[in-house]
């Protein structure tokens, strides 16, 4: 039986763009375009098996070896810090991790800064590097309303266009790091399936540079 390369793709629009990239690079799997509820698709001929997973879970699938390679946002990689190789920046899903607050916010350094975020680790590392004392408030969604209701002074979140912030009278105060989709590989898979993984990296790099 042919060894298959398992590829975890993030469900949704980003995943579709990523698959298009794989397809253009010669790693197509026509069944993926069929309109059904299947989550796993394979092209035995070229030895590739794709599966759709929740974007935030891609890194876990790859780190734990259920997927050999996958595409995950830099935000997830920074937050979860999986032990994987980060082989390519796909320049897709570009946005930034930023600190936002009400327009009239002024940081009073004598007080502990209350930070609401879904990205606890990124926020902690950012303020640790500045030596700023913070109180992290972990939220799972609707982060933007935290400063409005006085739950936090600032938020740390992904900003794409800034429209949601604007509509909630918030503005970006500081950019922490630019975010985009990255091609990651499980370290063991890289040792034993290096030929195919390197071929994919080379082909997609060429596509990105074209």
């Amino acid at each position: 039986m042919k060894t298959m390369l398992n590829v975890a793709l993030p469900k949704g629009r980003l995943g579709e763009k990523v698959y298009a990239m794989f397809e253009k690079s010669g790693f197509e799997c026509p069944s993926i375009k069929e309109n059904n509820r299947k989550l796993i698709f394979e092209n035995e001929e070229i030895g590739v098996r794709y599966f759709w997973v929740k974007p935030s879970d891609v890194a876990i699938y790859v780190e734990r070896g259920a997927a050999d390679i996958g595409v995950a946002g830099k935000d997830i990689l920074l937050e979860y810090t999986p032990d994987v190789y980060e082989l390519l920046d796909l320049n897709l899903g570009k946005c930034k991790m930023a600190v936002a607050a009400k327009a009239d916010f002024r940081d009073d350094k004598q007080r502990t800064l209350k930070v609401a975020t879904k990205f606890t680790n990124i926020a902690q590392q950012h303020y640790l590097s500045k030596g700023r004392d913070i109180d992290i408030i972990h939220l799972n969604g609707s982060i933007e309303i935290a400063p409005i209701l006085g739950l936090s002074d600032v938020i740390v979140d992904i900003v794409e266009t800034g429209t949601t912030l604007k509509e909630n009278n918030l503005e970006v105060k500081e950019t922490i790091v630019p975010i985009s989709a990255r091609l990651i590989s499980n370290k063991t898979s890289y040792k034993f399936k290096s030929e195919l993984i390197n071929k994919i990296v080379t082909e997609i790099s060429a596509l990105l540079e074209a």
Partner: protein
Amino acid sequence: MNKNEMNLNFNEEVVFKLRSLFEKYGFSQYKMNKFEEYDLYARNKDFLISDSVITFTDTNGKLMALKPDVTLSIIKNTDDLPTTLQKVYYNENVYRIAKGTNTFKEIMQVGLECFGDIDSYRISEVITLACKSLTSISDASVLDISHLGIINGVCDSFNIPSYAKKEIFKYISEKNTHELNSLCNKLDLNEENAETLKALASISGKADMVIPYLCELLDGIIDKELLSDFNNILNSLNDEIKEMVRIDFSVVSDTHFYNAIVFKGFINGVPVSVLSGGQYDKLLQKMKRKSGAIGFAVYLDALDRLVEVKKEYDVDTVIVYDNNTDLAVLSNKVQEIQKNGQSVFACKVIPSELKYRELLKLTD
């Protein structure tokens, strides 16, 4: 009694093989206490994989810890004899926080350490043992070897400030050439130097292919002797071992403790590295010792993925008896079945979850 007769499970079999392998090379077992004074770990926290340690106060008031690591204890409890050689191996449980959870896990670790005069032969011997340890688990295995002295030498030659070195090491460990490129731009490194760092991050191959490439790539950048020593050690390995070894600079260990050669072992089918080691003279220097040191550990908990034991039955035969069953008959029947090499479970009521092949009733 051989190991088959002892009915060993997979991990026990691996321990058995490794112990026998290490003893063949003159290593003697080091047995240690379950507990160690917490102070030892507090002083060397950065050396530990996770900095959380299970502590308790002993009856004499001393703060003690359940070992999160074996190496520190061995160093502390062995003499500093820099001109001779001490070779020990261990087979111990350590207690660490599992990644992604906030709970401690007991991890079985087998490994070896050499202290004293660590020459090229010793390094070559330990690399050989690391490879043989991997093949005793699976034939589909590789050992990635890196040299921290080479990466450090390149960084120094490019005048990379110490605050950025940590990031360079991190990106090399991730084979992350795009972030490495951005960092080089930030540091105003010229294109040629940036390309050299990116090439180091991407390298992964057998020594006979990589060394000539490195000689060319790093010509005039690092001390030639460093590369030649590295080459001599790798050249001294026998052909079988050479086949398994890959030069890959993504193996990066903490440079505060490790120096020169570091390595990691991978087995096909196990998603994480199962073996990790290297030269750690700097840790010994921190502990005010003059000896050199090299060693490695094999993480047995990682091997769970290799064995998929799907037992169809919990037991071969279930014997059901009641209060009227003659005990001598029951006992003889149990022994008779066991003599045939089968397992037996005698009971009055069969547990609902128990799966068995045969049922024998000794009831009226």
